[in-house]
């Protein structure tokens, strides 16, 4: 044959194999139904499932063997490389998207109800967390499994600061970033010499220590009962219908109608500004020598040592910056919930944030933002599928590993153009 026509044998084999696997997997689970002390067999249900799997596999295989399918597969796989270097004059054709997204972000609260608003706030909090962890894991390549500890420090910073020192949202916001950064340094010092699995274990332990302390120090943190968090204020004005202690609430001061969503609107605005600020700072840092040093550390630590890079400084700065971002996120989370307790800071949270970074593409800012929304907002919007959430999540991960092993958005950098006089 001159032209390689559609080969039917391979798809048939694939589908047979898939059917066999489906039989093994579903046979005992679906086919054998317990009935009191005995059981009965449901072979027709198994047959349906296996048939569906085989048909699906056959069609998929057929498609992938056709010319169009092959091209599609190739496009998905792209180059095997990690980082794209774009020419200096490259302008992304998604440029027009940015103002559009910003506009949407500004207009959005006027139309959104309370529920949607809270969902988006949660999404933005995870964007913040993802961006922070992205510095540690994505850029510096230090696998941190206890990242949630810094998030907890931020959240409890607000709760404890209010309880014992009478601090409010605004004073805690910078303090929490600072405290989390200090905790990051505290964790950073002992793990300076570690990498890979050992680092992961130590950071995992750190995360658990913080959570267990919060959980068990009953007299100080309230333990599992948690603590209440004050509502945020704006220039001392409260967002409630009536202010405490005879103050003037926000809506009366500005002469607008009372809106029960005001608190969330306020959090949304401040959070959005913070995310934009963090995005900007991160964008700058990556282009500075310190950002390059982080990536160099990820790529080849021995080369960094041979070059006399101050790896103490590089690692600590990555840990501290990542931690302080999580501290900020914690403060927002606490004000948004109005209550904190240790169950919000389990290892599962760390894993979720790590999944955001990995799914988004290690080191890629845009990817992390997208992935954060995908993993937090999508489950909320798909409430009706709540039972299948974890299944969907798993399928998504598997598909990603097959077709996008480097994450949603591959990290890309613009090549350098000659710049006039750069300050040291």
């Amino acid at each position, binding site marked *: 044959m001159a032209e390689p026509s559609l080969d039917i044998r391979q798809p048939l084999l694939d589908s047979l194999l898939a059917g066999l696997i489906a039989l093994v997997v579903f046979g005992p689970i679906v086919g054998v139904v317990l009935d009191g002390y005995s059981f009965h067999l449901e072979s027709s249900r198994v047959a349906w499932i296996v048939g569906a799997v085989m048909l699906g596999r056959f069609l998929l295989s057929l498609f992938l063997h056709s010319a169009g399918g092959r091209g599609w597969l190739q496009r998905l796989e792209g180059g095997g*490389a*990690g*980082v794209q*270097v774009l*020419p*200096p004059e490259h302008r992304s054709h998604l440029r027009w998207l940015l103002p559009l997204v910003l506009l949407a972000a500004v207009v959005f609260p006027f139309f959104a109800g309370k529920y949607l608003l809270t969902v988006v706030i949660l999404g933005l909090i995870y964007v913040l967390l993802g961006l922070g962890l992205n510095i540690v894991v994505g850029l510096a390549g230090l696998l941190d499994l206890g990242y949630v500890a810094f998030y907890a420090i931020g959240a409890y910073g607000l709760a404890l600061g209010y309880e014992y020192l009478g601090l409010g949202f605004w004073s805690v916001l910078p303090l929490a970033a600072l405290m989390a950064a200090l905790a990051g340094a505290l964790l950073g010092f002992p793990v300076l010499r570690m990498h890979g699995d050992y680092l992961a274990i130590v950071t995992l332990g750190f995360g658990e220590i913080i959570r267990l302390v919060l959980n068990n120090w009953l007299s100080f943190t309230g333990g599992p009962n948690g603590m209440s968090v004050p509502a945020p204020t704006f220039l001392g004005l409260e967002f409630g219908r009536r202010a405490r202690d005879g103050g003037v609430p926000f809506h009366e001061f500005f002469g607008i109608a009372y809106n029960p969503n005001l608190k969330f609107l306020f959090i949304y605005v401040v959070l959005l500004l913070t995310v934009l600020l963090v995005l900007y700072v991160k964008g700058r840092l990556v282009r500075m*020598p310190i950002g*390059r*040093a982080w*990536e*160099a550390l990820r*790529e*080849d630590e*021995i*080369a960094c*040592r*041979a*070059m*006399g*890079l*101050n*790896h103490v*400084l590089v690692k600590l700065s990555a840990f501290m910056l990542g931690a302080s971002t999580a501290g900020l996120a914690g403060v927002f989370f606490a004000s948004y919930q109005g209550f904190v307790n240790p169950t919000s800071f389990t290892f599962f949270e760390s894993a979720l944030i790590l999944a955001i970074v990995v799914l988004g593409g290690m080191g890629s800012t845009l990817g992390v933002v997208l992935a954060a929304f995908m993993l937090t907002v999508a489950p909320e919007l798909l409430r009706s599928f709540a039972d299948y959430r974890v299944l969907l999540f798993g399928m998504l991960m598997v598909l990603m590993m097959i077709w996008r092993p480097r994450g949603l958005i591959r990290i890309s*950098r613009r*090549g*350098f153009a*000659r*710049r006039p*006089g*750069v*300050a*040291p």
Partner: protein
Amino acid sequence: MSVPLLEFRAVDLHYGPIQALRQVSLHVDEGETVSLIGANGAGKSSLLMSIFGQPRPSAGQILYRGEDITRKSAHHVASSGVAQSPEGRRVFPDMSVEENLLMGTIPIGMAHADEDLGRMFELFPRLRERRNQRAMTLSGGEQQMLAIARALMSRPKLLLLDEPSLGLAPIVVRQIFQILRELASGGMTLFLVEQNANHALRLSDRGYVMVNGQIRLSGSGEELLGDPEVRSAYLGGH
């Protein structure tokens, strides 16, 4: 006599119970090209890395321009004018050529970055062609050039080279050594660690031969090239 640029005084170095260097003393004067040759595992790379304190010597002193740097941190040494092109090149694979070069400026800051980039592209025209390419896509020889250029970006007074000929085709090795010769004639002080004794000794003013962590022989490049022991051990003996 003036103070040597780099001096080892009776340096011992241990990896746990294993002794890698025994009472090593050597010196490199300003403007000189000195090579250290020896077989695999003789301790050559350990000696070079010990200048950056990784690992630190267990006894003895390392002096740079008369200053004791035995206990100084790696970045202190790097910013005071020592740069290294490490064994196996170790360029950053996912970074572009230009980013790799900019990594080299970290010890001294970005003040001369643009000027030095221009200089490196002059010295290595191949790198200019590939400036926005990722380093992993370069050939071995180009990666070696990049590693040398990266080291030169910190404006070193002393350039340490660990096996620049490792894994390269003979013709590429000749190119690399030609570049090193140009650097040396431009006044750069080179300290070269090599297994390729023939090339290294021909380039060098002086040489040391290391065996099992000890300096066995020393002398001018030509002396060593003619030495029967060196010939039989490192030059394929005839």
